[in-house]
């Protein structure tokens, strides 16, 4: 035990003396964090939405590059051979190396989280669960790192092998590219990669319901971690001259690979679909809470006298939960998941997720999940006044039209030929698109806004032009004064109504790939505010 602790202490000490190791372990994750922060236009909650990916990238880098690089370089220079002269067990040394790497990963993750919190990201919903999941993720990737360390004969081979793992995991493994935006084959393939389960499980603890809903993800990580650890231990070599090329050594690689296959097959057989890609059919019934709870409060509570003046934003800053959600939070309701905070805020330009039974407001009582502002709000969309809009919405903090979130093409902007063809088809068919003809004007506008929001979420090339077409069509179909009121109503009730229209987008030749509906509703609301700003002359018509 003393030997293991000494080895652990020396491993950590040497790691912190190595500048390159520090850069890879701590600086790179922070660079990723800053990149996401800047990329997503400093949106705090969006950062929280990507924290699972960011933490997974950190673990992947530390475990699949850092760990094997350290082990292989020490083995290459003969350090491990020298250890072998001592009366110590292989398992003791390997365990101390794993423990050291785990501590490095935990500290790197904590640093990343701390900086994200300092940037304004809301506190993770389930910090303790997050630590547990982080441990599972670390186990899975450290197992993989061990296999790589045993396969690679030298450090350049680690880099090559690492890239073979890193890039596919980023691109089709569910880490850097949202699963929902991948083609079908890639979504199925991603089920064989641990990255997907890592992101899902971590994200569930940051914004979701915590550990409770991550059973399969954790199982997948355990299977992959166990396969890697067993294979790594069996292939262990003290000496660079001990050839990996032996058949017995190669055979153990198949154990690690088999664990991936087992996980993928299990996922396929269970029809596993991660939360972010769940379709509307799988969402909870309207009477229950949304799949992902809103982020924690980061602005003063309604009782604060300065709240209304300081925190006015494009989307109302304070939301309250429905009675059903409150019951769910106290364990009194079924179907509602992960909502433990009785008050939550939306980001300045993002609405939070919620669900209500009906789009139709009641004259006697506001909708159960309506936005609660520190002043009276109109009882129905018909009752909205310009004063309400002036009081509750601001238009100068919206994402830029030329940015990544809710982009809108400028008037003079020309699409490329393929996009132009699709755009022409949309322009021709949008007037007759069925969801755009429903009787309820609020639902009708909401449906039309989905036509802009879905390609935005999926980052399709047409996104900026689809928004333009939707704005034009809405102004054609609905009288201006009515449209203004409805858009205000949608801004204040982003999660009301239904999102079935998303399933009808194929009629406009959009892909039928699953899309994050919560995000789609948010983007629809932001597009709504952007159009409202144009109608009121608060935003330039030709784009910003």
């Amino acid at each position, binding site marked *: 035990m*003393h*030997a293991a*602790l*000494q*080895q652990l202490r*020396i491993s950590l*000490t*040497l790691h912190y*003396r*190595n500048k390159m190791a520090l850069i890879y372990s701590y600086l790179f994750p922070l660079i990723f964090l800053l990149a996401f922060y800047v990329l997503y236009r400093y949106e705090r909650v969006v950062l929280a939405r990507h924290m699972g990916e960011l933490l997974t990238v950190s673990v992947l880098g530390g475990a699949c590059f850092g760990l094997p690089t350290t082990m292989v370089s*020490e083995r290459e*220079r*003969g*350090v491990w*051979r*020298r*250890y*072998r*002269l*001592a*009366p*110590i067990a292989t398992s003791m040394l390997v365990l101390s190396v794993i423990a050291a790497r785990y501590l490095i990963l935990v500290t790197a993750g904590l640093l990343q989280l701390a900086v994200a919190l300092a940037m304004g990201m809301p506190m993770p919903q389930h910090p303790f669960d997050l630590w547990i999941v982080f441990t599972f993720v670390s186990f899975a990737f450290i197992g993989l790192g061990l296999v790589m360390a045993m396969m690679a004969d030298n450090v350049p081979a680690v880099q090559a092998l690492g890239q073979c793992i890193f890039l596919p995991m980023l691109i089709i493994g569910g880490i850097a590219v949202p699963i929902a935006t991948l083609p079908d084959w890639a979504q199925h393939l991603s089920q064989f990669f641990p990255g997907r389960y890592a992101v899902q499980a971590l994200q569930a603890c940051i914004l979701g319901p915590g550990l409770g809903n991550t059973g399969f993800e954790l199982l997948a990580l355990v299977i992959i971690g166990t396969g890697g650890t067993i294979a790594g231990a069996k292939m262990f070599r003290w*000496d660079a001259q001990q050839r990996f090329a032996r058949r017995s050594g190669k055979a153990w690689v198949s154990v690690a690979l088999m664990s991936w296959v087992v996980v993928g097959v299990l996922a396929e057989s269970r029809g596993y679909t991660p939360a972010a890609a769940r379709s509307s059919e799988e969402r909870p019934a309207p009477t229950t809470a949304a799949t992902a709870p809103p982020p924690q409060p980061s602005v003063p509570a309604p009782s604060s006298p300065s709240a209304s003046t300081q925190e006015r934003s494009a989307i109302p800053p304070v939301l309250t939960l429905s009675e059903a959600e409150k019951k769910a939070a106290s364990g009194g309701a079924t179907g509602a998941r992960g909502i433990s905070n009785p008050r939550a805020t939306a980001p300045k330009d993002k609405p939070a997720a919620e669900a209500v039974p009906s789009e139709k407001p009641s004259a006697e009582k506001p909708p159960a999940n309506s936005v609660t502002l520190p002043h009276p709000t109109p009882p129905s969309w018909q009752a909205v006044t310009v004063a309400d809009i002036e009081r509750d919405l601001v238009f100068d903090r919206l994402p830029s039209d030329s940015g990544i979130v809710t982009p809108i093409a400028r008037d003079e902007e020309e699409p490329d030929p393929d996009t132009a063809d699709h755009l022409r088809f949309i322009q021709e068919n949008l007037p007759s698109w069925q969801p755009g003809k429903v009787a309820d004007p609020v639902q009708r506008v909401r449906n039309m806004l989905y036509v802009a929001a879905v390609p935005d979420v999926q980052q399709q090339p047409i996104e900026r032009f689809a928004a333009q077409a939707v704005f034009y069509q809405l102004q054609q179909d609905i009288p201006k004064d009515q449209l203004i009121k409805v858009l205000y109503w949608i801004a204040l009730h982003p999660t009301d109504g239904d999102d079935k229209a998303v399933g009808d987008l194929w009629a406009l030749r959009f892909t039928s790939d699953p899309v994050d509906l919560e995000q789609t509703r948010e983007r629809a609301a932001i597009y709504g505010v952007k159009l409202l700003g144009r109608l009121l002359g608060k935003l330039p018509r030709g784009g910003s």
Partner: protein
Amino acid sequence: MHKVVVRDLEKRYDAVLAAQGVSFEIDDGEIFGLLGPNGSGKTTTLECVIGLRQPDAGHIEVCGMDARQHPTAVKEKIGAVLQTIALQDKITPREALELFASFYTRTAAASALLQRFALTEKADAPFDSLSAGQRQRLAVALAFVNNPELIFLDEPTSGLDPQSRRDLHAEIVRMKRDGHTVLLTTHNIDEAEQLCDRIAIIDSGRIIASGPPRDLIAASTSAQSVLLRTAPPLAIESLAGIPGIDDLMYENATITFRTKTPAPTLSALMQIVSELEVEVLELHARKAKLEDVFLALTSEESQ
């Protein structure tokens, strides 16, 4: 009492037999040398004995224990300095000694080892800032962290400057004086002759001779070497009639040859010198050295 017994050791790397039928014993308290050219199998043999390599066949006994059956117990009793001095760049001598000491049940104090091997001033300096001599001293100090009964040194002086080599030789002699048993591999014949109580000459994976260096030399059938320089220089043709001359060479006005019959050959040589009336500037005749024995044995083996 034998500290090490090796019987019929065999180790094969693919088609190459690196050790074949290697057998020797090392007595308690002696310095035993494995002498051989590069690639002869001496390092393979040593690494099989200390448990770094798994032999294909043979019996190895260390400190009375079967080394293949009880490798961990054997490792508690031995210390080794390998050819490559391998530590992490940023580890300090003190940390390395403390780390390696933690691996053993019986240990020496790091501070005492630092002092003994003149590393106190560099105790907290990173490994990559140490000189070759300091690194080698640290490697030897690491071999002593467990107060070993038996020390294995694999070509310990290769790459060292003369002063460091002399210091290490003194340290090896001290090991013997302190009661340690030492197995030393080297290709340096002078080193083996100077330090070892007994040596085994190994070539192509086989031990071709073993015993104390003096006995090996005495038992050698090697010829004596003769060197002659005269003024004016003798023409090499003038020696044609002298019997018993082998390997005759003429270089820089100096004649060298080997002879197994020194008395009649030198007598005939002196007669020619006298007849030709040349002045003898230099004349040497010397018995075979260990180097000659080694070269004779290894060349016979290669033939």
